[in-house]
Each structure stands twice: as structure tokens, then as C-alpha cells.
């Protein structure tokens, strides 16, 4: 490393190497230079009116404290990175019932009975809000049996018709009697009373549409008995339509309410207390609540930890108590003001405020300056998140404009209040003569840069993606995993919305779209959950009526009755089948279902928003790399799926491209600002190159560490890019002007950023840890590329194209 100390060179007053605009500069700045470069100086202005500045600062800080006296409003905001239309329904509350902690150990069967009784109490007392998760077993089977001939498809009807000849029915009844001699007959899947001819087995995949448990665990149940009690996952459906875990130790219940999850939970807890049963929230609301609790309990703690880290760095480097406390005080008020200005504090805001603490140090430590006035570095940082205005993530879109305001506030506080504090209490630090003469190393720079760029290009194709549809909070990880293992994964549940002017029309539309969605099983979806398949389309009813008339069902069924009697069966024992097949149950219309015993279950799917909408839920397959299923209804119209998993799949497909666009935008903005500050194209290009190298290096490292990259990390990636732009701009400027390079200045700003990142990384929370990791890694790489890569590139450009700007002004500060 070729460098030499520059202690011997006497710096001019204007070029005094202070870490920040210090009190010692007052005399130097008192007389503005003749070239006008100090025409407006915030620090000079502050030094001239220190007490007024401090008074205003204190008043604003106290106002922020008073504003926040009751604590900031806290939100979980676990779906804040999802577009609004893809967020989960906000009125659904999943409750998981399990044994109370103080419940005496008894027979497991007693617990199951207690859970079912507790669910019954909730259903009775919250009758308007509790909705079945699956069609209640008895009612569903009854509905299907009564309307099977109207619901099944034309092909299935033809198959069934072929099985209703005298010979076929006689064979089927003979087979039934033969099978009855087996001890396994009564406990196998046969339900002779419902289906003596084993017709449902002929329905194949169509029959399994009417079984709730058509899922990934057991695979699609070809020929399953429609309306059976098997639920999604390993669960089974209770008589009331709730889901019971396979071991009977937990019960899942759904409430649709606008009262809020906590209110619903508290009421449910009161209702089930007498049964020795505990209730907890699961699914989205639980994660949301856990995230809010996390922010409430650890948000301010994390901000304080980051501030402590920055304090340690500053104390270690500055070795001055007053200077350190002044900077930390300034940063604390910036954080306080930002929290006060936010509509609500959420996990994403906490992370950004922690970053603000680390990156705002730049305002106090702008040594080496990129330009004489020291604004380019601040501008580069402030514009770092602007590209996120183009992103589809609402939370980051909001921070794209909040961040420049917060950085501006930070810069103003640190460049105005800090000199004022030092003017009053003293303690400013001066670093006269501590710079190094740095020599650019073009060969090393080019080699290192190209290697890293190649690694970056490789890593982009190997990136592991983590979508915004799943926000992991450690406190609820076990509960959420149990929900997935025993029942289903709510994050994989997406929905189609069928609209109509009234419920009947919307249900008619749902019947059409539901059948189209059913074709996704088992390839792209594991389960389609909606009322569509249970309702016959209006236009099909007349056609089916004619088809059934051709079958001469009453005569066929009389023949079957005779066969049964001849074989020794009691034909009345098969009345359930004989009545249903005769079509005595009426038509399976939307109105009939709404008025019938399945009306309560149907409420789960009905919503009203101007038009009436019917939701059909689709549980997508476990292959997260698959695209969004494309579904077309028979009339040619597309069926649009929305939901967190859809948003994640769409985002996965374009994430790498968009990440490149956001990074390039940030790179361009940073380079433009550097060019504006230096009017040197070489420095701007070198800074842009260093930014690109830094981001490539971070991505390559994340790939090697097998850390998934996703929307939550984007701001961190852009911020480390900005950090690299600033480092590179400073180093290039120093070498370009042949001035001593204050490498410590670059390193210490990176250390402050690293301290902020380390606070997040050390939190241990899955929602914050990756963000912190990116900044820790990125801050180190940014200072490295700034010192070792950018100057070399700049020097190469100089050699190739010569200097592109006038000689440096002699008054320019370092």
C-alpha cells in the first residue's frame, strides 16, 4: 500500500481538516473568501447565533417528546410491502383452540370433546361472525347426494348412465354383497347407504372437488367420497365445519369480523374459559400482532442500541466527550423527530430509522468533502431511496420521499446545531495534518472491479428469493408452523372474486369460475375452496333436466330397488341414495343454498363492495418458483387471482430486473450529484463504478452465504450503494486534487453505518437480521471500493482522457 504521511504540509485555514464544521473554523469562516464559495454557510450562520439555534432545537425536541408522550402508534404492517389488492382479507380472524395451560391431563378424547364443545359455544354466542372453514360434513354430504345428478359434468353423467343398466346394477350389487363378507368392508372407504353402486368412484377428480381435503399431504383424492370429513392438511372437518387437528388436540375456527382481532380473541377467551380450553390467534392477524408487539417491545430498544453503537464508534475515534455527546444528541433528536412525524411505527420504519442513525453521521463527519461546500455526500444519501418510488412496495414507496426529508433534517441538525453547541460549550475536534497522501492503483482497481462484477453477474442468476408474502417473526414461528403442518398455509391461499349485482348472480358467476379454477388441481393448486362447484349454473339447469329425462331415472331406480330386494338387501336402507338420485332434493341453485343448511358456510365467501362478490380461495402448490396460474372461464374471460402468494410470484419473476433498474437509478443519481459537486466526469464515473462494484459484491456475498434476497432488503442495498458513491467521491476527489486523503473519515462513516447494521443483525429477528447483514457487509465493502477501486478507475480515466475540469480552487476544503 503506497502512501505517506502528509504531516509536514501546513494546511491553510480554509483547508483545515476538521471532521465537522468545528468552532475552530469560526475565525477562518468569518471573512468570506473572495471567490464566493462560502457565500452561504449554515455552520457559520449557526456559530454566529448559537444560543438562538440551540433554543429552537431544544424547543423542537421538547415538542417532539410531548407529541410522543403516550408513545408512538405501533403497527405490525406485515403486509406493508404487498400491493393493496394482494393483501389478505382484513376481516378474517383465525382462532386456534387448544388445551388450557392449567387443564388437568386426561384422556385425549376428552380434550377433543372439550374443543368441539368450546367451538360450539363460540358458534352460538358469536353466531353473526363465526363462519365454517369447510362445509359442515353432514350438510355437505346431504347437499351433494341430493343434487349430484345436477352438479356433475356431462362426461360423468354419461359414465353414470352407463352404470345404470339392469346388468351393470346387478353386477354392482353382487359385488357389494361379495365385499360385505370381508371384515374390512365396513371400515374401508365404502359408504353403501350413500352409494351402493360405487358411482362416486367413477367421478374421479370431479368427485374430489366436493371433498375439503384435496391437498398436498394426501394428494388429490381421486374418487373420494364427496362431502367427506377430511379437511385440508392432516385435519378433519367437524360436524360444524371447523377443522380439527389429526390428533384431536387443536381446533381451527374462523371468525369474520370488523371488530379487530384482539377484541374477537378476548371475547372468545371469555366464552371458552369454562371448557378448560385456550384460544390464540393464528395466521396473518397473529403475525401482525406479533410484529406490533416486537416493535413495541424492541423497536425503541433497537434504535437505542444503534445509537449506542454509533456512540461507541465516535467515542473511539474522536476521543472527545463533548464532541461525541453533541453528535449523539443531534442524532437522537433526528430519530425522535422522525418517529414523531411517522403515522405509525412498524418493523420497516424501525429498520429505516436505525439506518438513518448510521448514515446521518455523514452530516457530522463530512471529511473528506467531495466539493468545497460538502453538500454532494448529503445529496447522494438523501436521493438513495428515490428509485423506490418506482417499486411496487407501498412501504418503500412511502420511504422513498420520507427518507430525503429525514436525511435533510439530520443534515440540518448536524450542520447547524452541532457548530452551535460547540460555539457555546466548546469541545470541537480538529484533525489538522492527519491525512495520508494516497496513490491510485489502476491495475488493482481494474482487476478487483472486474472480478467482483463477474461475481455479481453470476450471483444475480443464483439469487435465492424471499417474497414479501411471508414475514417471519420469531415469537410466533412455532405456532405458524403448526398451522401449516396441521391445517394449511394461509400465506399460500389466494382468491378469485366473482362479481354480480346480487348474491345469486355472483354465485352463478362463481359457479362458472369455480369450475375453471378446479382445473388447477392438482398441477398448480392443491385445493380450491369455494361454493362454485356446489351450485349449478342457471344456463345448465334446463339442459341437464332434459338429459336426466332421457335417462329415465325413476324407472332405473325402481329396477335397482328390485335388484336389492332380490339379493337379500333391505331396499329402504338405501333410501338416502334412491331419493338423491331421483332428484327429489330440488335444484342446486344459489338461492336454495343460501336458504338451506349450507347458507352459514356460504357467508364466508360473500362480501359486498357495491356489487356482491363471491370469493373462491385457491391454495397454490408448494412450488414457489412456479408462476401465477392463468385461468380462463369457459366464456373466455380470464379469472384473476389475487393474494400475497400471487404478489410474491409476480415479484419473483421480475425482481432481479427491477433490482437492477433501482440500483442503476440510484447509481445514476449518485454519479450525477457527484458530477454536480465536482464537475469532474472522471470522478463521477469512478464513483458510479465503485457503487456498482459494491452492490455486486454484496449480492455475491449474500449468494455465497445463502441468504435469500427480497423486497425487504432493497433499501439496504441502495443505501450501501450510496455509501460507496460517497466513499468513492471523497477518495477520488482527494487524489484528483492531490490533497491528503483522510481515509479515517471514510472508514469512520462506514463504521457508523456498520454499527447501525450490526444492531439490526444482532436483533436475532428474521424481519430485521437480513437488512442489518446487508448494511454490515455493504458498509465494509463500500469503504473498501471507495479507497481501493474508485481512485484507480479515476486515474485510468485521467490517463485516457486527460483532466476534464479546471485546476482545484485553492480555497476548497478537504
Amino acid at each position: 500500500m503506497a502512501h505517506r504521511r502528509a504531516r509536514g504540509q501546513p494546511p491553510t485555514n480554509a483547508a483545515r481538516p476538521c471532521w465537522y464544521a468545528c468552532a475552530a473554523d469560526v475565525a477562518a469562516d468569518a471573512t468570506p473568501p473572495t471567490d464566493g464559495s462560502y457565500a452561504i454557510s449554515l455552520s457559520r450562520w449557526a456559530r454566529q447565533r448559537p444560543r438562538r439555534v440551540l433554543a429552537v432545537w431544544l424547543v423542537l425536541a421538547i415538542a417532539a417528546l410531548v407529541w410522543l408522550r403516550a408513545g408512538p402508534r405501533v403497527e405490525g404492517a406485515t403486509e406493508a410491502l404487498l400491493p393493496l389488492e394482494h393483501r389478505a382479507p382484513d376481516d378474517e380472524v383465525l382462532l386456534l383452540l387448544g388445551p388450557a395451560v392449567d387443564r388437568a391431563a386426561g384422556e385425549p378424547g376428552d380434550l377433543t370433546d372439550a374443543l368441539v364443545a368450546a367451538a360450539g359455544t363460540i358458534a352460538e354466542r358469536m353466531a353473526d361472525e363465526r363462519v365454517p372453514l369447510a362445509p359442515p360434513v353432514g350438510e355437505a354430504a346431504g347437499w351433494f347426494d341430493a343434487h349430484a345428478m345436477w352438479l356433475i359434468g356431462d362426461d360423468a353423467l354419461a359414465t353414470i348412465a352407463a352404470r345404470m343398466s339392469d346388468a351393470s346394477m346387478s353386477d354392482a350389487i353382487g359385488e357389494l354383497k361379495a365385499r360385505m363378507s370381508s371384515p374390512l368392508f365396513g371400515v374401508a372407504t365404502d359408504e353403501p347407504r350413500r352409494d351402493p353402486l360405487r358411482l362416486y368412484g367413477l367421478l374421479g377428480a370431479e368427485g374430489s372437488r366436493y371433498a375439503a381435503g384435496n391437498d398436498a399431504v394426501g394428494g388429490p383424492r381421486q374418487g373420494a367420497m364427496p362431502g367427506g370429513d377430511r379437511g385440508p392438511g392432516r385435519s378433519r372437518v367437524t360436524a360444524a365445519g371447523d377443522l380439527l387437528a389429526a390428533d384431536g388436540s387443536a381446533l381451527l375456527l374462523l371468525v369474520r369480523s370488523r371488530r379487530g382481532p384482539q377484541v374477537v380473541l378476548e371475547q372468545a377467551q371469555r366464552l371458552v374459559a369454562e371448557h378448560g380450553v385456550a384460544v390464540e390467534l393464528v395466521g396473518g392477524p397473529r403475525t401482525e400482532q406479533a410484529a406490533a408487539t416486537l416493535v413495541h417491545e424492541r423497536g425503541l430498544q433497537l434504535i437505542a442500541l444503534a445509537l449506542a453503537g454509533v456512540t461507541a464508534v465516535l467515542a473511539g475515534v474522536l476521543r472527545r466527550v463533548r464532541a461525541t455527546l453533541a453528535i449523539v444528541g443531534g442524532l437522537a433528536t433526528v430519530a425522535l423527530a422522525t418517529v414523531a412525524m411517522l403515522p405509525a411505527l412498524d418493523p420497516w420504519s424501525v429498520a429505516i430509522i436505525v439506518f438513518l442513525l448510521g448514515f446521518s453521521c455523514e452530516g457530522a463527519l463530512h471529511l473528506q468533502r467531495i466539493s468545497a461546500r460538502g453538500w454532494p455526500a448529503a445529496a447522494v444519501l438523501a436521493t438513495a431511496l428515490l428509485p423506490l418510488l418506482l417499486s411496487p412496495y407501498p412501504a418503500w414507496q412511502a420511504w422513498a420521499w420520507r427518507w430525503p426529508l429525514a436525511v435533510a433534517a439530520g443534515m440540518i441538525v448536524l450542520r447547524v446545531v452541532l457548530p452551535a453547541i460547540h460555539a457555546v460549550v466548546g469541545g470541537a475536534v480538529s484533525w489538522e495534518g492527519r491525512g495520508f497522501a494516497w496513490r491510485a492503483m489502476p491495475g488493482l482497481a481494474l482487476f478487483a472491479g472486474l472480478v467482483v462484477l463477474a461475481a455479481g453477474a453470476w450471483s444475480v442468476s443464483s439469487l435465492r428469493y424471499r417474497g414479501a408474502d411471508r414475514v417471519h417473526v420469531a415469537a410466533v414461528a412455532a405456532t405458524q408452523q403448526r398451522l401449516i403442518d396441521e391445517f394449511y398455509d394461509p400465506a399460500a391461499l389466494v382468491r378469485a372474486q366473482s362479481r354480480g349485482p346480487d348474491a345469486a348472480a355472483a354465485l352463478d358467476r362463481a359457479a362458472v369460475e369455480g369450475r375453471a379454477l378446479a382445473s388447477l388441481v392438482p398441477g398448480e393448486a392443491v385445493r380450491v375452496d369455494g361454493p362454485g362447484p356446489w351450485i349449478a349454473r342457471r344456463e345448465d339447469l334446463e339442459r341437464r333436466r332434459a338429459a336426466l329425462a332421457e335417462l329415465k331415472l325413476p324407472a332405473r331406480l325402481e329396477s335397482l330397488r328390485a335388484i336389492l330386494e332380490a339379493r337379500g338387501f333391505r331396499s329402504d336402507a338405501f333410501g338416502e341414495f334412491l331419493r338423491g338420485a331421483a332428484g327429489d332434493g330440488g335444484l342446486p341453485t344459489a338461492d336454495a343454498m343460501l336458504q338451506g343448511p349450507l347458507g352459514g358456510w356460504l357467508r364466508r365467501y360473500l362480501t359486498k363492495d357495491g356489487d356482491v362478490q363471491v370469493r373462491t380461495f385457491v391454495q397454490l402448490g408448494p412450488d414457489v418458483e412456479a408462476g401465477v396460474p392463468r385461468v380462463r372461464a369457459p366464456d373466455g374471460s380470464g379469472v384473476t387471482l389475487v393474494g400475497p402468494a400471487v404478489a410474491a410470484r409476480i415479484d419473483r419473476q421480475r425482481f432481479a430486473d427491477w433490482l437492477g433498474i433501482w440500483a442503476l437509478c440510484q447509481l445514476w443519481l449518485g454519479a450525477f450529484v457527484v458530477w454536480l459537486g465536482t464537475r469532474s466526469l472522471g470522478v463521477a464515473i469512478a464513483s458510479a463504478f465503485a457503487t456498482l462494484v459494491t452492490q455486486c459484491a454484496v449480492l455475491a456475498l449474500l449468494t455465497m452465504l445463502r441468504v435469500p434476497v427480497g423486497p425487504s432488503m432493497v433499501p439496504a442495498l441502495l443505501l450501501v450503494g450510496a455509501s460507496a458513491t460517497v466513499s468513492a467521491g471523497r477518495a477520488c476527489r482527494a487524489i484528483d486534487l492531490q490533497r491528503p486523503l483522510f481515509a479515517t473519515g471514510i472508514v469512520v462513516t462506514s463504521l457508523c453505518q456498520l454499527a447501525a447494521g450490526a444492531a439490526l443483525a444482532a436483533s436475532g429477528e428474521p424481519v430485521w437480521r437480513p437488512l442489518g447483514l446487508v448494511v454490515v457487509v455493504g458498509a465494509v465493502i463500500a469503504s473498501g471500493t471507495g479507497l481501493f477501486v474508485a481512485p484507480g478507475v479515476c486515474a485510468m480515466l485521467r490517463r485516457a482522457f486527460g483532466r476534464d475540469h479546471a485546476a482545484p480552487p485553492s480555497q476548497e476544503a478537504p
Partner: protein
Amino acid sequence: MIARRVVVFGGLGVAALALGDRVVSADELADKRLQNRLELWANYAKRTRNLVARVTTTRETSLLREPLISTGQLVFRAPATFVLRDDGLAGATTIVDGDELAIVPNGATVGAAARGVITRGEAPAAAWLADHLRAAFAPGDGAELVADCRTDVPRSGYRLDLLPPRNSSIRRAIRSVTLHLDPVAGAVTEIVVAEAQGDRVRMQIADHRQNLPDEELDAILAEVAATRQGRAQ
């Protein structure tokens, strides 16, 4: 007064101790009866490499006007093959072979035979029953026979009741399986399956022939295999 309290509480304490002792004794007694039954059962089963017996199956069900009675053959070959084969084309063959379960009508065509396969995951009660029927004839110390179930040993007779676990879905299909043992040899002579929906299946087993030559058993199982394939239409 104090003396009376001492007497009352002292008496209650002694009674509680005595009752506790009786409860412990009852549990021990039940365990002992179970051990006795399993020893008796194992006395015959432990020697079984294969077994062929005559079986008369009676199903009492509300679907039929009269109980369905069928006769046939019970075949077991260690370690995991158990077959109940009715006589004649009007009956069926129940096959438990490893993890495979099937009820195949003896006169079944190829398609009907394929429809007879029972998927274990779809019918846990059938899987449980099949496993315990097979275990009733398999050699061993009885651990497999009483696995995954509760047991009851009635005081009278040489019987062993196997009850499904309370918290399982099996309980909703099967109430109990009762094995009747020969009081001298320990062979299973009758199995009664009480189904939850009210049907009752009684299998009376006679003419036990243990450890037949392999050729004879192969011939029987070859017929079973042919039935399993189904008849060409």
C-alpha cells in the same frame, strides 16, 4: 372435640391408603391378566411360520334382511401375508400383504379387482384392523398385537379385547376387536369385530393347520394372486 377430629381424619387417612392400595392392586391385576392372555396366545403363535384354517364369517348388518354367512379359508404366511378367501365366486378375498390392502370379489373382472384396493391413508380404520388381524396370527410376544390400541381382558373366558385409541379417527369406525383363544393351545378360535355404526362381524376359525409345506401354501397363494389380478371380461 380434638380427639374426635383425630379419630375422623385418622380414619379417613387409613381408608384412603387402603383404597389407593386397592387401586394399585386392580391395575396390577389387569396387567397380570393381560400377560397371562398374551402368554397363552404366544404359546401357539410363536410357532407359526404359516397357518391355514377354515373360517366362517357372519356379518350382522341393517343393510341385509338376514345375517350374511360365508365360509372360506384363512391363510397366514410370516412375516406379513394374511388372506381371507371365501369359497365360491359369490364371495370375496381379503388381502393384507405388507402395506397393501384389498377386498377383491372372487368373481371380479380386471377393473373391479383394481377398484378393490384400499389406500391406507384414506382408510386408517381399515389399516388398523388389517394390521391387528394379521398380528393375531403372526409369531411374536404380543407387542405388535397390542400396539396402537387399548386392551381389556374380561374376567370370564379366554378373550382379549383390542380397543382403538380414544383420540383417533379409528375409534369412530371400530368399537372393539375381540379375540377368543383356545384355553389349552392358545390358538385364535374366533374374532369379533364390533363396528361403530352397529355392524358386527364374527369370524369363527377352525381346523388350524400350522406350518404347512411351502408347496401347498404356494398353491393356495397362487390362486389368491389370480383372483387379485381379476378375470378377463
